[in-house]
């Protein structure tokens, strides 16, 4: 029912899409994959009326369209779930869901109808933890995702675009989403599904379209292909082993960081030791307290109880600066809001920490910066390019470079490869292991279990704000999930 043909788009003279075509049947889940910056989101945004294409045609059920405003796309029956949330935190769920198409009575907004309809939609999605009047900022990330979906479904959509809907979700939540996608497709919606998680792509889709560098590479029938083929099409070459080798026995050295019965409002009873040279993974469900653990270690929302030492010296970081001075680095889960000054150059971002905290050594000079950026394998137009114009994976590399410049002793990664494509992911994995080899202590929080298991020398599992268990390298996904969901608490959580 939808056909896009010959779509081209360039930003600031850089060609992002070149003659890309795509078609979608009713009731079909059509996956769109490609490296970071391949142009997936741009194509979807063109479909949603956010960008005007430079060239190309768009027809729905035989009618040609050209959207210059998202409202027009909505009117044509297109709903989109954005890669970045488009929710207003201080407005209620119902207001967000009906934003731009509020029902009216006598010319005034009919709140009651709005809230009733929102409640119905939420109920349809088996979501009981949200009421229509809750302000969105009170919701967890996963629930905001639900609101986004409800919002997209609230109008009469025939085509639903989902741009990395599971990036912020744990596997277990992603499965719930998958069943919803199947139900929607069964209702006759055409669904365009963008994801970096190949497993769910193969799980859900009937066809897969691969983009690379703004070009259409292939459209494959899911049934007739396999992951290796898709990856090869995406990356343009064979990817070797997925994960770098783990630490050899005895490689883990001195204690770098220890926490004894640390706790605060969100987490409690944290006993933790990180050693030089090892990569420790932290698993857990959404909201289990993993980010809170990282934020406590880094002094953002510090421990209020317990003791913490770094290299044997006691440390009570009360703000990030204290942690940075002690040699701790945190790669946050939200790199755009927390990791980067988007309108500054690559260099300025890479040097930010060393400039702000001279105790970590003089800021490296030009040549050293170049070496650093080469080390993280950054692909950019130049060192003076603003990072806002880099793709997600390359932005993440800048974040890592920023920390490496400060020569840290402990590296905390919160979802280091969220929204990062397979190629860049592999590069980051390799880099992480290299850093551990050099004697850093590394902590990785990830919602993607294969990655976590592949990378970690041991795995800590969090549940309800506590460390619920520790598993050795190579533990199975099932065993991790068992500890993470732990008994009847799991059922309560699965709202």
């Amino acid at each position, binding site marked *: 029912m939808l056909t896009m043909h010959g779509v081209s788009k360039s930003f600031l003279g850089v060609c992002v899409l070149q003659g890309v075509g795509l078609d979608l049947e009713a009731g079909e889940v059509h996956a769109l994959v490609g490296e970071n910056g391949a142009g997936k989101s741009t194509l979807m945004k063109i479909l949603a009326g956010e960008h005007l294409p430079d060239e190309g045609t768009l027809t729905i059920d035989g009618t040609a369209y050209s959207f210059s405003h998202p409202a027009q796309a909505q009117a044509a029956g297109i709903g989109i779930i954005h890669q970045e949330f488009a929710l207003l935190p201080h407005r209620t769920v119902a207001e967000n869901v009906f934003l*731009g198409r*509020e029902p009216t009575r006598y010319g005034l907004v009919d709140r009651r109808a709005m809230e009733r309809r929102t409640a119905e939609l939420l109920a349809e999605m088996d979501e009981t933890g949200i009421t229509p*009047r809750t302000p969105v900022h009170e919701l*967890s990330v*996963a629930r905001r995702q639900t609101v986004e979906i409800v919002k997209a479904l609230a109008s009469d959509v025939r085509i639903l675009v989902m741009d990395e809907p599971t990036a912020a979700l744990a596997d277990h939540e992603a499965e719930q989403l998958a069943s919803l996608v199947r139900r929607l497709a069964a209702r006759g919606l055409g669904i365009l599904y963008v994801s970096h998680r190949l497993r769910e792509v193969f799980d859900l889709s009937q066809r897969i379209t691969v983009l690379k560098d703004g070009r259409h590479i292939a459209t494959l029938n899911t049934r007739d292909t396999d992951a290796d083929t898709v990856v090869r099409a995406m990356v343009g070459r064979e990817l070797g082993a997925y994960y770098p080798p783990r630490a050899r026995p005895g490689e883990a050295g001195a204690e770098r960081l220890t926490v004894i019965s640390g706790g605060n409002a969100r987490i409690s009873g944290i006993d933790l030791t990180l050693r030089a040279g090892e990569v420790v993974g932290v698993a857990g469900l959404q909201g289990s*307290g993993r980010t809170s653990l990282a934020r406590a270690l880094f002094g953002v929302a510090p421990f209020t109880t317990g003791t913490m030492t770094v290299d044997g010296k006691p440390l009570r970081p009360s703000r990030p600066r204290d942690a940075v001075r002690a040699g701790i680095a945190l790669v946050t889960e939200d790199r755009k809001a927390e990791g980067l000054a988007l309108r500054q150059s690559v260099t300025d971002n890479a040097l930010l920490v060393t400039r702000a905290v001279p105790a970590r050594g003089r800021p490296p000079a030009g040549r050293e910066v170049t070496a650093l950026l080469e080390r993280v394998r950054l692909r950019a137009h130049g060192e003076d390019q603003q990072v806002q114009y880099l793709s997600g994976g390359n932005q993440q590399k800048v974040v890592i470079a920023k920390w490496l410049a400060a020569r840290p002793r402990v590296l905390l990664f919160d979802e280091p490869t969220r929204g990062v494509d397979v190629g860049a992911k592999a590069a980051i994995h390799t880099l992480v292991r290299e850093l551990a080899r050099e004697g850093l202590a590394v902590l990785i929080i990830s919602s993607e279990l294969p990655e976590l298991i592949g990378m970690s020398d041991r795995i800590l599992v969090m549940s309800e704000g506590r460390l619920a268990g520790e598993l050795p390298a190579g533990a199975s996904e099932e065993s991790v999930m068992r500890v993470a969901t732990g008994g009847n608490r799991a059922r309560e959580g699965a709202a």
Partner: protein
Amino acid sequence: MTALRPDLKARSRTGPGRTAELRLTGPVAGVWLAALAVTGLGWIVVAARGGDFLTVTNVVTILQNCVALGLVAVGQSAVILTGSLDLSVAYLISLGTLVAAETMESGSVPVAILAVLALCAAVGLANGLIVTGLKVNAFIATLGTAFILRGWIEDNYTGPAGRVPASFQHLGYDRIGPVPVSLFLLLAVAAILWLVTRRSRLGHHMYATGGDEHAARLSGVRTRRTVITAHVLCSLCVGAAALFLAARLGAGAPWAGTEARYDLESIAAVVLGGTALAGGRGGVSGTLGGVLVLAVLDSVFNQLAVDPFFKNVVRGVVIIAAVALYARGRRTEQERTA
């Protein structure tokens, strides 16, 4: 889907159902409480000096003094809610009174009202178009319009001009019982604006645009139109203020708006009323409270014969302190919920 920790659960049980403006600690209730407190304080201080603060005349004067600033501030809240700003209101008021008085002198009152409203709508439209179309920051854009209006006024008027017929001056002077009619004008305009911002689609879009313009646009909101409409609404309110002032002054005055610094005062009142300068939060009802606080303060100063320069010091302190309190409230709220 999410495993709730105990504290989260506790919160979500009380959380839903409450809208921000009903909270007693929220800025809107806060500013009305502040108005009450200032009144009480004024009453005590004045009484201690042997005066009587809450006489009917005095209350009426306070209310009367709210009207002009109230009209402008209510309009200003509309633009500020939308994430914009209007610094041209002062000169627009001046020009409005001049146009009103001159048209009334030579034509009729209805024509004059239409002329003023048309002029204001045009200026608002221009402001909106410059902000959205030319993408000039609202601060600079409306400052620019202010300069343009100023030049126009200075080039064409030397001193007061025009004459307002007695029939129209009723708006400025008459009372129904002890209540000035102009107060009804303010209440009517405020009610309309309240209805628009809180209950109409446009209003929802205004909050959305002010809260996050990008997100609003993605959700299908015509953000540009919304901003333009907010500017027009604001300027229409300014027009109402100009008409009221014309009625009260009996003539048009080239400095009616500027000497009273309606531009900065209205912004101060809006912010005092708890509307976030960045947009997206707050509302008309708070603004009225802010205006009332300023008027009550003024009245207390009058009663106590405070040095006018010292008044400014106190006003500055009050504005900063009030906003600091809101910021505190907002911060603790964030800490609780984030």
